């Protein structure tokens, strides 16, 4: 399957603005950021979580713990994959018991990744609550999961893909819609 | 029945023949070997592009009967021999009970006579029950048709007993066929000791386990004047020892198997128990030495050490597997393909290693196409190409490491006492 970029739906500034807004919403919803931690889902949720935490610190002047969750071992599709995904470390180096955890991912689609992340998170301890922040919500949920903080809602078809690119991994910031090229 | 074998290349080392000639056979005897023979009555065999040789002799086979008929019996073994181009085989006495008395020897000859495909000559034991202690009644064994003595597979470890065996066998002009192996040095060994035994983690058998035993037996042959025949030599040290002994005038002969001439110890790496054999497969430098010794005349004959086994004793843990290779049906093709075709061994020498070589060791009046002699004839098709398929063996032993190998140069026809017994690897009649 080959993909071709169709159009850019968010540029560098757009992403920055969306994260700033989400940071404000997180602070507002939780009435401050005491006992809040941000945990990104590997891979692109990681850098997004770092940026959100930085933004929160800029606004509130207090740093929040940041972690990265690797959900490979919790995926429900392992037996259907052609080749083995690489497992990476989960880097949550703080006690999550009693905290409000803001899970961060780039795109919310079927909800299966978030389901896996919830399981992975709960195996690390018993947070007070878990909230979900995503840069893009593209619809088509297969599980009863909904985001608390959304950068942008993007209606898509099944034949399209959303690619979130971040500087830390892809050397530029943008969100594009891709379409499948028939070969 | 008269047979006229026409137009083949007759290779008869006993008469120094290597030429296109015809052979007339009648009443089980060679009548004439000449150019342009004609006969109105005889069945004509077109031998164009074939090699016509004296019947091949394999002086070292295990036919397993009596006692181990689930591995092989005299009928299946005779068929395998005939299909493999052999007209005479000598069967080792490690049966159950062992061939250490006239009754067993006579039984084997009778069974072979009934099968009627191959001359089966029994080899008696050196010691009672192959136990290595008391001598067998060799006079009785000779009278029952035994042509040699051996405790094959159970080397006579006591030097005094071996000395007496050589001494006593000398009275009957019996060669003593020695499986030379120092059992203390080879204990628990699974393969040749060397690079590959380290790699495969299997207990090694040093070449010296064979050579120490050969050296002892050569000295005992010198001491006694008996005829020592060393079975299946496999190391370059063995070649050197036998060469020196021969130069010294000691009555020593020896044989080599096809597998020790073509397959190295690297093959053990799959842990396929079909590569397990005693003595073990050796590295290439030993194989090269054996090949040179064939040409040089240090080695007197090729023998298969045909050792058929039932599936369960090979389809198991390598360490638990029985050693041995089912060799009768691949021997000729292996030698043709691996040694003769590439020019390592010339065809006349090859034929002598299968004919005059063993005949001289055992004092047989076979292995020749001299008119008047028994018409045992082996025809080879040097151009036939076939893939080894153990499932099609006549032998009950399908144990071969050569399955799937494509070989060129196969037995074309086997004629025993003037009667066609096998044609292109298939038993006739």
């Amino acid at each position, binding site marked *: 399957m080959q993909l071709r970029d169709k159009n850019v739906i968010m540029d560098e500034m757009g992403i920055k603005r969306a994260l700033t807004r989400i940071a404000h919403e997180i602070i507002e919803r939780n009435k401050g950021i005491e006992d809040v931690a941000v945990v990104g889902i590997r891979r692109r949720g990681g850098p997004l979580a770092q940026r959100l935490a930085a933004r929160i610190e800029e606004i509130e002047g207090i740093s929040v713990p940041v972690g990265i969750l690797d959900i490979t071992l919790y995926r429900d599709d*392992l*037996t259907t994959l052609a080749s083995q995904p690489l497992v990476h470390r989960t880097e949550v180096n703080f006690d999550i018991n009693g905290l409000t955890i803001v899970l961060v991912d780039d795109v919310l689609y079927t909800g299966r990744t978030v389901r896996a992340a919830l399981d992975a998170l709960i*195996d690390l301890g018993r947070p007070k609550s878990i909230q979900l922040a995503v840069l893009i919500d593209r619809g088509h949920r297969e599980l009863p999961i909904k985001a608390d903080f959304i950068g942008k809602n993007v209606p898509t078809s099944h034949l399209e893909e959303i690619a979130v690119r971040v500087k830390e991994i892809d050397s530029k910031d943008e969100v594009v819609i891709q379409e499948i090229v028939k070969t | 029945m008269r047979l006229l074998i026409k137009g083949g290349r007759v290779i008869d080392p006993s008469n120094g023949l290597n030429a296109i000639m015809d052979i007339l056979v009648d009443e089980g005897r060679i009548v004439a070997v000449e150019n342009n023979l004609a006969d109105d009555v005889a069945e004509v065999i077109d031998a164009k592009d074939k090699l016509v040789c004296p019947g091949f002799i394999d002086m070292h086979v295990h036919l397993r009967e009596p006692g181990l008929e689930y591995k092989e019996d005299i009928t299946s073994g005779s068929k395998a021999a005939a299909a493999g181009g052999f007209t005479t085989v000598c069967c080792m006495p490690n049966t159950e009970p062992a061939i250490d008395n006239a009754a067993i020897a006579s039984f084997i000859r009778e069974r072979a006579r009934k099968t009627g495909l191959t001359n089966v000559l029994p080899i008696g034991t050196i010691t009672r029950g192959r136990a290595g202690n008391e001598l067998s009644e060799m006079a009785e064994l000779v009278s029952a048709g035994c042509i040699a003595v051996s405790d094959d597979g159970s080397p006579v470890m006591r030097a005094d007993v071996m000395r007496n065996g050589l001494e006593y066998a000398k009275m009957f002009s019996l060669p003593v066929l020695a499986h030379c192996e120092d059992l203390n040095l080879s204990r628990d060994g699974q393969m040749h000791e060397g690079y590959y035994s*380290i790699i495969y983690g299997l207990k090694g058998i040093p070449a010296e386990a064979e050579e120490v035993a050969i050296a002892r037996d050569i000295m005992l042959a010198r001491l006694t004047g008996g005829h020592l025949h060393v079975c299946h030599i496999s190391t370059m040290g063995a070649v050197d020892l036998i060469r020196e002994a021969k130069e010294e005038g000691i009555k020593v002969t020896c044989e080599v198997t096809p597998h020790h001439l073509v397959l190295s110890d690297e093959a053990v790496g799959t842990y396929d128990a079909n590569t397990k054999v005693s003595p073990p497969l050796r590295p290439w430098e030993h194989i090269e030495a054996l090949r040179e010794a064939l040409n040089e005349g240090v080695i007197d004959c090729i023998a298969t050490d045909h050792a058929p086994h039932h599936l369960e004793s090979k389809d198991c843990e390598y360490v638990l597997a029985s050693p041995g290779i089912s060799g009768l049906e691949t021997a000729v093709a292996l030698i043709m393909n691996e040694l003769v075709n590439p020019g390592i061994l010339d065809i006349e020498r090859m034929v002598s290693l299968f004919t005059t070589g063993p005949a001289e060791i055992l004092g047989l009046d076979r292995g020749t196409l001299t008119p008047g002699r028994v018409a045992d004839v082996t025809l080879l098709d040097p151009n036939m190409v076939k893939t080894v398929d153990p499932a099609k063996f006549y032998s009950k032993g399908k144990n071969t490491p050569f399955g799937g190998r494509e070989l060129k140069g196969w037995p074309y026809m086997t004629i025993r006492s003037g009667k066609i017994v096998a044609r292109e690897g298939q038993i006739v009649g």
Partner: protein
Amino acid sequence: MGFEQTKDLLGLRELNREDIELILNTALPMKDIIKRDIKKVPTLRGKALATVFYEPSTRTRTSFEIAGKYLSADTVNLTVNTSSVLKGESLRDTIKTIEVMGFDLMVMRHSMSGTPHYVARNTRMRIINAGDGANEHPTQALLDMFSIKEKKGSLDNLKIAIVGDILHSRVARSNIYGLSKFGCEVRVVGPSTLMPPEIEKLGVKRYYNLDEALNGVDVINVLRIQRERQQLGLFPSLDEYADLYMLSPEHLLRAKDDVLVLHPGPMNRGVEISSQLADSNVAVINEQVTNGVAVRMALLFLMMGGAKDEIAN
């Protein structure tokens, strides 16, 4: 990657550097799981693994068992008495029986070299060799390599001495194969009667003197000496063995300052390793055990976690 394409893990000889790196990298997150309060992930739910040991072993078998359980695989242990096997059922039938019970993977220990290779050819189950005769013990070498990498940061170009009974040691062989792929200089040292004749052909250096062998090494891997080798006449006494080859703190002066001491266990204190050294902080013998579970979890995940039948066969 080559490893993903093969059905079994029989030895390190046939793995390449990338395969080994994948296993060691995967073991890292696995080790984190072992250290959590909730030591379980659902990854191998619905998969079944049998450990079949034809030779007694506590730590390797337990290590595989708990590795399977941490990954939520159903784990069953069979310890088979070899002597009863000799009389009874053929190995092939035993394996078939285990196979048709639905196991996906079998961990096998056998006293006879090559047996896991034979079994692997005759079953659809994936096979992990947990030690076969004097041939290979790949998971032990992998955990040794993991332990070394953890402490040294990298495996590349280290100097490593393996001390003891090289002749009979599957741990030594697997370590030699594995470490050689990272450009390590591997030295083997032990009595001449416990040294294979052509060991240099494996690319290692042979020593008979312990101090010489330890000169400038980064890692010392001390092998367990089997007491029954003495009864076979391979060395005169345990006392003399200890005099010549027991690793004690004073030997470490020859080695690098940050030398690491490994031992596959169980230890014969006072024979191949002094008690003082075994309990010192240069020895990571207990850490090795934890790492063993992590490495085995990594392997079980890599071999059972994906689409099983597409990769097999």
